[in-house]
């Protein structure tokens, strides 16, 4: 009788799966069609050795261990797709001998010294394969190349490199940084960076993906070295001697493999692996973090990490020093005149409660403002807004979305009804055409950029980049449109008008699924090509080309970020982008939609869970009596009905006396908000300021009470990434000293004010949210276990929504709205302020840098904020790299070093957000805001620049180790070029 096995294929989106039948070693099995044979065999419990295949990277075909016989022919199981009726034999003598030859070859390249190897943690793929294959000896040949440890975060040891090419595949085709390759022409071959440069002088962006995927210890995180093993803290010379001795005294390695297996087991007692989510940007990379006590050994993303697979960027992989920084706050602090003193929690909390209560009684609840942290969890955001509304009695609660993405939310609310990405990042990978607006994706959302680059490189996806800055993605674009700063709306509307003029609009979609088209069409009339060219400086041909590309694409995604939102017309431009997508029917299908690229790890979730002045959790309006009633019932209190102040308005309200107290959680408002002088003035003036923080930040320095908070690794909870994906983070270790998780602190404050909350774990908070907020009805910790995730809205039965608007838009009639955007003239340059200062993230630092400045390696790579200036402008101003400049705006001044760079053009300058002193950009930004969302127009910044004369050290702001100096040396190739290996004389391709 034939036993038929049907597998359950976890964790992958197979869509509607059809099955094929194989005969494997005489047994019949059914497997999904199209899957690699290796995976099919593995999942049906048939072991086939392999070390180069990786689920995220696919078949690389370098190790030759996976040979099997299919219909009598030797084939690599990793690169052979299954097909109906295949007869597979995995253990014939021919297969065994081929595999043995392959393993012998691998082991000439890799010295097995597992007991003293930091990679021997039970998951070393080579070790395990050697053990499983029962290999008893090796003849290792060392290579004449030294270890390269010139990168601050990882090392490459050519001697241990098995030339499997995983790192190359990852760098070239997965994160697509195109830095490394195997130079098969070298003798012996090795991995090379750029044109065989030291890593520390290469274009490597330190994303660490190569280290993640390396199956052995050849590329390894420095933080692991000497730490993971029990016996690995040994000088390399001693190790060399030891290994030499062992190998000479022992030809049969099986006993050695056994002892190292035992040792690996012992290690597991001291290494803890905790699943968490990156606390930096909103891509939402998830990974395991390996810790030993409080020491962070490494960050290990997994193929099953839903947003990122095995990819990370430098920050998520290596930027963790802040957690154990000696500058962490470990005790509550209370201001005493010109200094702080340490206090007990009891004293600090009762002071906070007493002062907030006094102010509430004296000036009313609306005299208090609460800012929830965007790097806190959803549960904490929920409690922050509940504290504001249910305990203090005000809707004055907001979060850092106000500084960045609130306009995007407005634009989407107006047109499609949900303030989040329409689909997942996978949709943006699937799209025929992606348009990025004001998004320096490769630096601000590097892992997402990797997906777009991959789609472009391997699949020929089309890309249009609309940006004032010729950043890395421009190099990948089919079309680059660079409008005058702040004029994107005109570009978008001119494209839309051209589409309408050509009759290219999606009539059927417009009729069936939208309203208000006629009004919109009419309002487009002034946006002629001539007008657009005049206002934006974009040649009409480019606008026509963009319109044509949109017309020709079957599916279009628009990704937009701060370059769009941080303008006076931020809400208007995002509205226009969404209108354009409606016009062309690009919503509700795979590979379509609008994708605001959120900034902070949980800025989406903090808004979703109600830390907004107008919305309760799940975007339920505070001024809707029915909604309020629901929450009043759930919380047992009367709720305030008028929408509250935004974070930016709170500053004005302090200065005009309406706001008397602020409770700021995890936000450095002094550095983050525009017009630093004004914010400082307000914070000096506010009667009572509580700051909940990891560090004594610039904002905390104004506080009356500082409450020490836990980092993300020190607590449980959930984040929502930019895709609306809810993911769990688990606690790896306790907070330092007396610091506590934000949710615990908020609860202490609430209870001291009489709330009587009794949450003992964030899970209970999530259960409460699920009971009240419709979007989260089906969210539970159980459904989010491990690497599982849910994209809201989540129905009670747990069904989530990866792709929105498939059958209705979020309006009562289910139809989208064309909303006519209003054009607001941006601040232009003047004779006095003749340059334009663009500003934003740099890859290595996160925003204002409170976390990343504390990473030694990141500091080494980017030691200061600096002004990028184009070669033409530099020449005009008499500036050279290394000079310092005084930059002035109508509001203030900044001093910073200059870097002449072709990453900016004409009269545009660029500065990173990470400066904290004289180089902090928000000393220059002013009070202009988007009138709808109240987001500051950070990016409308006319300035003057003058060279700082006199004595100072003139040195390039970026060291030679920074990748930006070397990007022109990159060598792009697809894959590892295994054919070159096969054509080497010393490689006799395995034949049966």
């Amino acid at each position: 009788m034939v036993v038929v096995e049907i597998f359950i294929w976890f964790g992958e989106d197979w869509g509607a799966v059809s099955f094929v039948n194989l005969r494997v070693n005489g047994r019949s099995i059914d497997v999904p069609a199209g899957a690699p044979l290796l995976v099919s065999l593995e999942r049906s419990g048939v072991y086939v050795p392999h070390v180069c295949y990786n689920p995220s990277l696919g078949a690389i075909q370098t190790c030759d261990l996976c040979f099997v016989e299919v219909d009598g022919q030797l084939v690599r199981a990793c690169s052979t797709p299954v097909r109906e009726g295949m007869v597979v034999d995995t253990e014939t003598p021919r297969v065994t001998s081929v595999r043995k030859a392959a393993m012998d070859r691998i082991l000439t390249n890799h010295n097995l010294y597992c007991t003293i190897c930091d990679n021997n943690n039970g998951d070393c793929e080579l070790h395990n394969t050697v053990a499983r294959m029962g290999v008893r000896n090796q003849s290792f040949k060392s290579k004449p190349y030294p270890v390269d440890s010139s990168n601050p975060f990882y090392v490459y040891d050519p001697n241990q490199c098995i030339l499997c090419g995983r790192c190359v595949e990852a760098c070239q085709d997965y994160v697509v940084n195109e830095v490394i390759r195997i130079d098969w022409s070298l003798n012996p071959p090795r991995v090379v960076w750029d044109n065989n440069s030291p890593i520390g002088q290469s274009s490597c962006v330190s994303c660490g993906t190569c280290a993640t995927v390396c199956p052995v210890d050849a590329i390894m995180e420095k933080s692991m070295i000497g730490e993971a093993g029990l016996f690995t803290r040994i000088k390399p010379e001693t190790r060399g001697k030891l290994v030499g001795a062992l190998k000479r005294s022992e030809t049969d390695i099986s006993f050695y493999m056994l002892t190292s297996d035992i040792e690996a087991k012992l290690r597991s007692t001291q290494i803890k692996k905790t699943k968490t989510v990156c606390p930096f940007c909103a891509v939402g990379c998830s990974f395991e973090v390996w810790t030993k006590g409080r020491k962070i050994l490494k960050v290990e993303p997994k193929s099953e990490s839903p947003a990122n697979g095995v990819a990370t960027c430098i920050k998520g992989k290596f930027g963790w020093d802040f957690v154990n920084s000696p500058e962490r706050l470990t005790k509550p602090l209370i201001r005493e005149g010109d200094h702080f003193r340490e206090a007990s929690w009891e004293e600090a909390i009762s002071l906070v409660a007493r002062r907030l209560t006094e102010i509430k009684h004296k000036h009313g609840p609306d005299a208090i403002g609460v800012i929830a942290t965007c790097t806190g969890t959803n549960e904490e955001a929920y409690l922050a807004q509940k504290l504001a509304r249910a305990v203090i009695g005000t809707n004055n609660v907001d979060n850092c979305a106000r500084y960045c993405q609130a306009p995007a939310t407005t634009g989407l609310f107006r047109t499609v009804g949900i303030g989040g990405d329409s689909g997942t990042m996978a949709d943006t990978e699937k799209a025929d055409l992606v348009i990025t607006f004001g998004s320096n994706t490769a630096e601000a959302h590097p892992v997402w950029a990797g997906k777009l680059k991959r789609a472009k490189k391997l699949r020929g996806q089309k890309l249009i980049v609309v940006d004032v800055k010729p950043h890395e993605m421009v190099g990948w674009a089919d079309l680059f449109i660079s409008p005058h700063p702040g004029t994107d709306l005109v570009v978008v509307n001119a494209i839309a008008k051209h589409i309408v003029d050509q009759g290219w609009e999606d009539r059927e979609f417009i009729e069936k699924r939208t309203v208000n088209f006629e009004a919109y069409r009419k309002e487009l009339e002034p946006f002629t090509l001539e007008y657009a060219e005049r206002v934006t400086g974009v040649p009409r041909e480019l606008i026509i080309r963009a319109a044509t590309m949109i017309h020709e694409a079957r599916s279009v995604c628009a990704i937009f970020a701060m370059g769009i939102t941080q303008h006076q017309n931020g809400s208007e431009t995002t509205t226009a982008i969404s209108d354009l997508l409606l016009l062309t029917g690009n919503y509700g299908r795979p590979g379509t939609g609008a994708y605001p690229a959120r900034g902070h790890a949980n800025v989406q979730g903090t808004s979703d869970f109600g830390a907004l002045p107008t919305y309760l959790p799940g975007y339920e309006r505070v001024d809707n009596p029915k909604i309020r009633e629901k929450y009043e019932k759930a919380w047992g209190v009367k709720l305030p009905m008028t929408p509250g102040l935004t974070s930016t308005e709170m500053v004005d309200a302090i200065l005009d006396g309406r706001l008397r107290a602020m409770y700021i959680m995890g936000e450095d408002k002094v550095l983050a908000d525009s017009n630093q002088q004004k914010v400082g003035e307000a914070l000096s003036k506010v009667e009572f300021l509580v700051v909940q923080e990891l560090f004594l930040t610039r904002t905390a320095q104004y506080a009356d009470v500082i409450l020490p908070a836990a980092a993300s690794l020190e607590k449980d909870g959930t984040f929502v990434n930019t895709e609306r994906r809810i993911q769990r983070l688990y606690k790896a270790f306790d907070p330092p000293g007396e610091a506590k998780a934000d949710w615990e602190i908020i609860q202490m404050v609430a209870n001291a004010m009489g709330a009587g909350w009794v949450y003992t774990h964030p899970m209970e908070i999530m259960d409460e949210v699920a009971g009240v907020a419709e979007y989260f009805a089906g969210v539970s910790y159980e459904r989010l276990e491990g690497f599982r995730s849910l994209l809201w809205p989540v129905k009670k039965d747990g069904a989530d929504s990866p792709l929105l608007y498939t059958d209705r838009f979020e309006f009562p009639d289910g139809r989208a709205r064309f909303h006519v955007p209003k054009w607001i003239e941006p601040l232009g340059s003047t004779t006095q302020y003749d340059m334009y200062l663009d500003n934003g993230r740099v890859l290595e630092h996160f925003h204002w840098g409170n976390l990343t400045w504390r990473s030694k390696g990141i500091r080494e790579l980017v030691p200061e904020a600096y002004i990028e200036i184009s070669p033409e402008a530099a020449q005009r101003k008499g500036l050279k790299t290394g000079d310092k400049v005084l930059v002035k705006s109508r509001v203030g001044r900044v001093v910073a070093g200059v870097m002449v760079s072709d990453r900016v053009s004409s009269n545009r300058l660029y500065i990173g957000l990470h400066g904290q002193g004289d180089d902090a950009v928000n000393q220059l930004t002013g009070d202009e805001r988007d009138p709808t969302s109240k987001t500051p127009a950070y990016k409308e910044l006319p300035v003057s620049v003058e060279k700082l004369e006199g004595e100072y050290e003139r040195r390039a702001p970026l060291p030679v180790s920074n990748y930006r100096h070397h990007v022109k040396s990159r060598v792009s190739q697809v894959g590892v070029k295994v054919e070159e290996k096969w054509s080497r004389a010393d490689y006799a391709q395995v034949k049966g």
Partner: protein
Amino acid sequence: MAKPTARVERKAEEPTLDLDTLVKQFVSRQEAFNEFMDVIQLLHERGILSALKAALERYEDLLGVLADWLNSMGTQSPANLLELVNTLTKANIRGLSSIISAASKGAATSGNKQPPSLEGLLKSLEEDDVKRGLWVVIQVLREIGSSSLE
């Protein structure tokens, strides 16, 4: 007008070892403590403590010597390897705890010995060396104590 300040006046550091807490723990876990002292005594009597101390202090040198020694032996039997692994294991702090737990079991079955008196112990707690050493010891003590409650 609150001027921004980064000045923090910290309370004097509390002593790294809080004797009151320590004593409380001793008293509440007296059984475990007695057992632990037996273990220490056994380890001491057999010279294992001194050997371990030396090995830990000279870990790197020890490995160097071993490596040289093995190199000079040329091709030999797997016994060399076993010896090396054993030595390495002993030289490690994890080794210490496994030896302790093994010895602990031995002590439990080795008949009744008189543990040192609590009073005598409290006196010796005043010595700096003892205070320092106790930090390590107390971790082990905790483990033994909590396992004895299971």
